[in-house]
């Protein structure tokens, strides 16, 4: 059976005033997975959701749903339900009627409406709240009403537009777990939009990193975190040290004035590249044992680890996450494995990037 549920083919979106919001978006989404569209605000995430839901038309390109083109299917006939960023609950209806809205439109029998709404409310831990007015619900509860209103219709796909952004940190973390669990229980396709990279890493089966209306990279959270395709993605996903470098030959890279052994290859000899090393992959040691020699500039205690900001002789900043303390102003050595070095070519397309990774595979990575 074909497992693809939604497919975008060369979708673009531009407005009358000439602003191009989406440039050639292509992707395929499989049934039953948790997808995240991740990107800074204004990059076009909501626009993609609105095109899937049918509130906005794509300017060019095709949108397929279960293999059928659905560009011209109106929003009310699509097998998709949305949890809106501002929840968009109906203020003139109580919780029960909000959830029942879709079923009433479809003229479902009264007893069935009652059963299904109660079940949906139970699903989101709001059993017994049916008679409350929306104004009597807290932010977290409203968000769950919005989710119940979407799932009660039993859609194949649920779209969630930054549903957690209005919640405080504690509630947000709690809801991340709940949402992920809910998705696994329901087995539905979730398309989740966020600008919060931690949220995306924690929840998704697959992430699409967007910037300026383009998908920069897609993959599992681990792939994207470990092997960002370029400076933007590396910078956006997690904290990273990014420095200019030179690829001497396969498996040999030069940066910070020294040559290092690495596991990447497939570039031209002496090609200019970007080097990424995650702060947690750097280990503090004595200057004699260090591959890099740096001076500690500042040190912050972050609860689990210390966050050190250090500088090498060339003036490159190196962030270090260390369990050990260091002395501010002291000279220390930094040690790291060849696997910790991730090399990124400038302006490499995602297809080329994937091909190169496969060829110069990271057998020793997994």
């Amino acid at each position, binding site marked *: 059976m074909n497992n693809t549920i939604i497919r975008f083919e060369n979708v673009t979106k531009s407005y009358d005033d000439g602003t191009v919001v989406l440039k050639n978006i292509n992707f395929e989404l499989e049934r039953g997975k948790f997808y995240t569209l991740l990107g800074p605000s204004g990059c076009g995430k909501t626009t993609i959701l609105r095109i899937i839901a049918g509130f906005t038309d794509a300017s060019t390109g095709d949108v397929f749903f279960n293999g059928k083109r659905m560009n011209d299917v109106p929003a009310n006939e699509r097998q998709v339900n949305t949890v809106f960023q501002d929840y968009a609950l109906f203020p003139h209806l109580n919780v029960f009627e909000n959830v029942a809205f879709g079923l*009433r439109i479809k003229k479902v029998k009264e007893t069935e409406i009652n059963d299904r709404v109660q079940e949906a409310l139970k699903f989101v831990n709001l059993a017994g709240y049916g008679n409350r007015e929306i104004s009597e619900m807290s932010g977290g509860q409203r968000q769950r009403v919005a989710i119940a209103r979407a799932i009660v219709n039993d859609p194949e796909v649920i779209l969630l537009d930054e549903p957690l952004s209005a919640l405080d940190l504690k509630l947000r973390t709690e809801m991340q777990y709940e949402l992920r669990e809910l998705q696994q229980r329901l087995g539905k396709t979730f398309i989740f939009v966020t600008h919060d990279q931690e949220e995306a890493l924690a929840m998704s089966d697959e992430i699409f990193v967007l910037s300026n209306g383009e998908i920069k990279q897609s993959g599992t959270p681990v792939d994207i975190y470990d092997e960002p395709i370029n400076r933007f993605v590396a910078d956006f996903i997690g904290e990273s040290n990014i420095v200019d470098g030179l690829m001497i030959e396969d498996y040999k890279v030069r940066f910070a004035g020294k040559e290092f052994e690495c596991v990447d290859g497939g570039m031209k000899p002496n090609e200019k590249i970007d080097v990424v090393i995650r702060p947690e992959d750097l280990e503090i040691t004595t200057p004699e044992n260090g591959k890099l020699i740096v001076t500690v500039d500042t040190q912050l205690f972050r609860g689990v680890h210390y966050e050190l900001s250090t500088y090498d002789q060339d003036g490159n900043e190196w962030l270090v996450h260390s369990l050990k303390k260091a002395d501010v102003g002291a000279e220390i050595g930094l040690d790291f494995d060849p696997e910790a070095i991730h090399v990124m070519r400038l302006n490499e397309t995602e297809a080329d990037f994937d091909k190169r990774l496969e060829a110069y595979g990271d057998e020793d990575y997994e």
Partner: protein
Amino acid sequence: MKKLSAMSKMYLIFVFAVLYAPIFYLIFYSFNSGGSMNNFESFTLEHYAAVFEDSRLIIILLNTVLVALLSGLIATIIGTLGAIGIVSIKDKKMRNTLLSLNNVLIVSPDVVIGASFLILFTMIGVKLGFASVLVSHVAFSVPIVVLMVLPKLLEMNTSLIDAARDLGATKRDVLMRVILPYISPGIFAGFFMALTYSLDDFAVTFFVTGNGFSTLSVEIYSMARAGISLTINAISGLVFAVTVLIVIGYYFINKRSKSVATGGHR
């Protein structure tokens, strides 16, 4: 709110006294058994009885109420749909032009509206009477309804419409189940405003009425010209009482819809 100072309290009392004194003076003498407003002889209801015995007056009263209710209803429907139409216009310039045209109608003097309707009706050969009065009342009430409904529509989050569409609602469902319930306080307010405007309209009606059809304000005017009679006072007293009732009714409807909107019954 800060407590009002003694001076501002005095001022408020003075202003309201000046505004309401003539009305209460008039109503007070409607109970006078003496035939004039000069000296109060003794309490009587005979002027009120006279109003109710005068079948012509009763018919006029019914006419007035009928015109008010009908024109209010029609204007509410037209005005509400009009407001929805105006809001849905994407072109900003067009939208503002329409709004300005609407506001011009509200501020333009009744005399101008009345005269222009008179010219229109005679030009196209409509007989002056009930129909002409009704049409002109609808006409001056529509802009008022638009003005009352518009803020509610603008306040409504457009994502509510997206949400309804998302849940399978057709355009009709969206209108009936989301937009209309949401803006209903504005619709009620518009209806009551239209009602009161129609009830107390004199100038426009004066121009376009004819064929023995008359409304209360026009009738009172002609009675007052013919000479003082305390029957006028009695009618005015009745109209005032009805107005107060409408205001109270409006207050309660407004309060109820507000408590629904904010979930008042905790």
